[in-house]
């Protein structure tokens, strides 16, 4: 009974929305919006064929490599800069500037520097989405609790052990907040780098559909980007819950008090 009720809550509104969409599009022929049925059949025709190998997977591969490198580099650099006070003071204004530069403007720059290659697209993703991870890691490292840090010192926990047992877990919630931003910026940059400068990939394909007024195909592209976004978000939430289980528990206890 409880499960049925939960299911009803979860599916009720989406079902209503799809129904409204269906009712709105079936009667009058609408150029801009296809019917749900047409979209589903276009979706399978368009993406479950050769395209998944030529466009979707390579795009996802670049995204994965780019985002992963950005996260690793961002955390490493953030640990270094965050732990060294003078380095932090030295780099802070420059980093603030880089964070503030809207990442998409890096596409034309890197196009110029590296021509249009896979490396360039990965470089765009890295250089755009490293900043939230880097700056959040710095902030997380800086904000380590003084008492906790003193405790670790009195027990002789220093060097790598300090990083592993104190700094990384303590900065964890901040780092994960940065990673979340990093993921969404990464997806944006993947699409843009392909829209702007490419002859294959998801972004390129979708723009091609739009230019040739293949409207249902274009919608199916929007849907696939949406699905990728949702999938990334689910993977992130799962990972975050696992890594920061202690943190969510702690927050719950604090909020209940």
């Amino acid at each position, binding site marked *: 009974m409880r499960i049925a009720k939960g299911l009803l809550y*979860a599916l009720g*509104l989406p079902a209503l929305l799809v129904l409204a969409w269906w009712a709105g599009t079936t009667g009058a022929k609408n150029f801009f919006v296809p019917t749900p049925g047409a979209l589903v059949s276009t979706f399978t025709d368009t993406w479950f064929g050769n395209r998944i190998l030529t466009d979707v997977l390579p795009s996802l591969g670049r995204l994965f490599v780019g985002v992963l490198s950005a996260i690793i580099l961002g955390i490493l650099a953030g640990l270094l800069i965050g732990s060294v006070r003078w380095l932090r003071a030295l780099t*802070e204004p420059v980093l603030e500037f880089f964070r503030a530069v809207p990442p998409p403007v890096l596409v034309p720059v890197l196009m110029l520097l590296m021509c249009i290659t896979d490396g360039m697209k990965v470089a765009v993703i890295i250089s755009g989405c490293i900043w939230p991870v880097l700056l959040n890691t710095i*902030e997380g490292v800086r904000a380590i609790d003084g008492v906790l840090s003193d405790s670790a010192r009195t027990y002789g926990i220093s060097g790598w052990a300090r990083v592993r047992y104190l700094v990384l877990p303590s900065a964890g919630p901040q780092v994960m907040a940065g990673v979340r931003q990093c993921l969404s910026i990464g997806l944006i940059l993947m699409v843009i780098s392909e829209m702007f400068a490419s002859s294959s990939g998801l972004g390129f394909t979708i723009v091609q559909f739009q230019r040739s007024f293949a409207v249902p195909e274009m919608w199916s592209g*929007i849907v696939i980007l949406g699905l990728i976004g949702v999938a990334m978000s689910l993977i992130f939430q799962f990972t975050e819950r696992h890594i920061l289980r202690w943190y969510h528990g702690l927050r719950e206890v604090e909020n209940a008090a």
Partner: protein
Amino acid sequence: MSKKVLGIAGILGFLLTWELIPRLGIIEARFLPPASDVIAALAGYVPLTAFWGAVSETLLAWFLGLTAAVALAVVLGFVVGSSPFLRRCTNSTVEFLRPIPSVALIPLAVLLFGVKIQSSLMLIIYASFWQVFIQVLYGVADVDNVAMQTARSYGLKTAARVRHVVFPTALPYLMTGVRLAASVALILAITAELVIGSPGLGREIALAQSGGAISGMYALILTTGLIGVVINLLMRLVERRTLSWHSSIRSEVIV
């Protein structure tokens, strides 16, 4: 004091490195002009009305999009947030729509509006709406039960309760949302101009790049970064001003 000196040293060191990379031929100057050339190009732009036109078009799209998104998100956020029923109904839909990257809407925006400012607005509103909406939901959910019961026991009506209990609780969350939305809105404004070609700095960057005005392109990018810095500083200032009464309550962790 020494922190400021170090910060300035950092900026100078960065500019010096940038200057030396093309001068020493590590990267050819036609791909990365020295810092001095770029700053000279920027100085050359400053007297031009076309430059300020582009800046103001970008800022206009940013401002209109952000305002609309915030207004929409605040209204919907408070309505949905204060009803457990609505919260449960909309949860799955929100969780599905939110992660959809706004750039997925680019082809649709082009199809509907072409290269007009509406294209930018559509992307900006979609992207920044979620930032604010989610924070408002968190904020309304965070309302202290004891405070709510106290207000009720003193006979405060719904409107008064929203004004005196719910709103102050949600305000810090709202401000965090607005600050995040402000930078997202700038990213999307530039993206739309760059990719779609709606008027503004982004389009100028694309034009400069295809026209081979490389120093100019870097100068425009520098401008977008400076605008971003100003927006960030401004938002932090506003946040601190409105929350001076309990800035310590909110950590920055929930983003």
